[in-house]
């Protein structure tokens, strides 16, 4: 059976109008689109300060000098290039569900990478399971998109998720802060919220894309079930009725709400996406309306 392409050409053409947006101010080289609180060689005036030896004479405010006979230096708001990193969950739990979450996450990652490439951003695709997997760095425009698709297509899901180890490796591998987009179902045996908090504390801006299948949130089964964890293989035998399903959904929603609170508390963003939602609808609906894309 032939494999379908991750994204088709018509969809890519629609994506060209979009750009990835972040809220935090990051230091970096000029050339970005999002304003930063850091000063630098920008166009928008920010402030004055006293001239110090070695400053660029071209930034001296000569009108102020004629008036006050003191050298003041004009400083400008920088619009830097911030690094964008896409953390893609490739654990076994992403391969469950009627519409496989891993495929959905790969398509979403491809779309976001294309948006970044079109705006000449530098995107780093980092799959993770129990730790970080070999990353793929893409930059240089839309014509570099084919290797991205190839990289994503060759990815296989499997293994267990370990957020703490993943974050530990991430902060040591990528010391410069930037936007971290995490595409995951955020299901692990440990406490993923603690790991995410560490990541936010390190200075990264978090964009949590919480992906779930419909039966992850509202399981359709009733009766006597033997449930097997896709990652650990451990099983649980229980009777499922309407009340149990209601409690399950409540627990899931509570988990999603905790993730949303964590993101907002750290000036990040959270978007919950069901795999029942089409990718195009997710991009132009949930993500764009939430201010994550412009």
């Amino acid at each position: 059976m032939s494999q379908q392409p991750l994204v088709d050409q018509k969809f890519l053409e629609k994506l060209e109008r979009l750009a990835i947006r972040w809220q935090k101010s990051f230091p970096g080289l000029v050339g970005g689109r999002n304003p930063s609180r850091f000063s630098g060689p920008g166009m928008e005036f920010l402030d004055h300060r006293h001239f110090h030896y070695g400053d660029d004479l071209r930034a001296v405010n000569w009108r102020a000098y004629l008036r006050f006979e003191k050298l003041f230096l004009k400083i400008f708001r920088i619009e830097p290039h911030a690094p964008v990193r896409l953390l893609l969950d490739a654990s076994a739990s992403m391969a469950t569900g009627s519409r496989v979450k891993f495929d959905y996450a790969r398509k979403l990652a491809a779309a976001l990478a294309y948006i970044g490439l079109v705006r000449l951003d530098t995107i780093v695709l980092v799959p993770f399971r129990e730790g970080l997997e070999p990353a793929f760095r893409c930059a240089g425009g839309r014509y570099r998109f084919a290797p991205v698709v190839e990289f994503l297509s060759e990815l296989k899901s499997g293994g267990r998720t370990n957020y703490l180890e993943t974050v530990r490796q991430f902060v040591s591998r990528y010391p410069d802060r930037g936007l971290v987009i995490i595409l995951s179902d955020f299901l692990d045996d440990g406490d993923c919220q603690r790991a995410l908090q560490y990541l936010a504390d390190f200075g990264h801006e978090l964009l949590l894309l919480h992906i779930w299948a419909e039966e992850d949130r509202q399981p359709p089964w009733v009766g006597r079930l033997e449930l097997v964890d896709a990652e650990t293989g451990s099983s649980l035998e229980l009777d499922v009725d309407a009340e149990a399903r209601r409690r399950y959904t409540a627990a899931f929603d509570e988990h999603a709400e905790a993730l949303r609170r964590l993101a907002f508390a750290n000036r990040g963003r959270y978007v919950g996406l069901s795999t029942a939602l089409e990718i195009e609808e997710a991009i132009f609906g949930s993500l764009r309306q939430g201010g994550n894309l412009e």
Partner: protein
Amino acid sequence: MSLANLSLAQLLALVGGGSALLVALYLLDRARQRRVVATLRFWVAAQRPPETRHRRRIQQWRSLLLQLLALVLLALAIAELSCGPAGPAARDHVLILDTSAWMAARSARGNLMEQARELARAWVRGLPSRDRVMVLRADALATPATVFEADRSVIARAISQSQPSATALRLRHALEFAARSRSLSGGSPGELIFVGAGRVSEEEASGAWPLPAGLRTVLLNQPLENCGLRRIGLVRSTTEPARWEVVVSVRNYGLRQQRRLLRLTFGGAPVGETEVWLAPAQEQQYRFSFRSRAAGWLEARLWGNDALQADDHAVLEVPELHLIHVLAYTAEPELWRPLFSSNPWVRAEYRPPGAFDPRAPADVVILDGFRPPEPPAAHTVWIDPPVKGAPVEIRGRLTRAKLTRWRTDHALGAGIRAHDLELEQANILVPSPGDVVIAEASAQPVILARDGPRKLVVLGFHPQRSSMRYEVTAPLLFANMLRWMAPEPFRRWEAHAQSAGTFSADLGDEPAELRVITEDGRLVPFTRSRGQLRLFSANAHLIRVLAPGSELVFSLSLPQIAEAQWEPPPGVRRGVPARAFPTRPTMALWPWLALAGGACILAEWLAYGPFQRARVDGRWAGSSWRLAARRAAAFVKERLS
């Protein structure tokens, strides 16, 4: 509504038992479903201790309902639910259709077989739709064409495909078979109906034999005039090899005197003709003879119109005449000519010894008193061979010796009793191992025979120069030699054209070895008793009876016509009855019920089966029914691999 195959109690038992089994299996199968989930962490909050009573609870009642519905539909299909008037209880009838050879006869109303088919169809049309009918084709054998069948199309096809055979009707045997089949059918006994001409043997027609109950006859006993060949015999003349003796038997089956012309042709040329005058029921033999050395077809034809054409014509194959070619190398052919010219089976050729050719074509080579440079390729008779170069050792020479002993149990000495023949000169031969001493003179071997691929006879004297020349012993001895060396022309060969069925043949001497085969080499079973061979053949084909000294060919190409007309005794119902039951055909629902049951099983499988479970587990994304068939095929492929 009615059930054709099961009673209501049987249907309820089948559905009840099946349902109980289905529910039990359902509860066992659906007791616990195994699901692979992304995480168990949220299930812990929803967890309750398992309740064993859930094992007894129907969890997917639609699935169970579909399965039970499928079971009921399939059980009704097995029971052959039909829609239409019920009528009386179904009965099992046997339709005995006369397919004897006489059914090929034509009357003023057309072919008898066609009339019988039409009457049989009319009788079947008058039957209640639930009644079952077995079609039995009756000739010398009783052959069922169908089982007890309610499907009228199958019965109609069997009737249409019934054709006249080559044998006569054995009505008693057919009725017994039909009655036994009806009693073993298990249903309510119906009628035994015989449709046909009812032409039987005189023994059956005159004998009082018990008739089965419920017999109905539809006889086509129209008076028909027919005169036909009964048997043709073709035998080679014993005195003249090229002459054939033909005996033709003709019988008048009609009720009026018949005048016909009987003509024999061989290879298209007329070889005999006679006018035939036959009184009613008279059978007459006519003899002909003709000469032919060549092979060909002998055709006997009875000219004139009558009811049955099939017995007016017969063909027999005539083999080529084969004479024994004797090649004698002798310096004195005048001595040998009287010996061989008296035998009509021998074609003798004389050559001087100087013209000896070892590869000259011949059946038997005679070497008269000389030694050839190399032995000939054919069977050889050495006459008084020289001491040097003889095929056997010569120990000495006798003078005025008397032939005292003959080996009469050997083919060469058969029939020779002469003990007073005196030989002027004779060589004493020394037999090698395997050689047979045929004659002795003064207790010394003078004639030896050696068997093998090239048979050999050595005479230690010249028979035509001794006193044997004037005795019958000389031609008898040489006749024995030729029969032993080239037995083929001496074989008895007869050809007979006659009818199929049971027949017997006279074998003459009781042969030690006998084979009966068809023209394609298949063995035919037979019995033999006191020189008589008896066998049966239901089909018109060629049968060869092969014995060491004879070959009989039976061409069973003539139809077997029975002589008498059977008349049913009073009390037997006759004719096709008027239609007694509503004829609106019932509509068979079982194919649709079977299809609906299959559809239920398919729907249940697609909705709740392993395919659907796999889909819910996430192995197949999407829920569109458009792709159901493709996914089902993929699932089957996955299972098979």
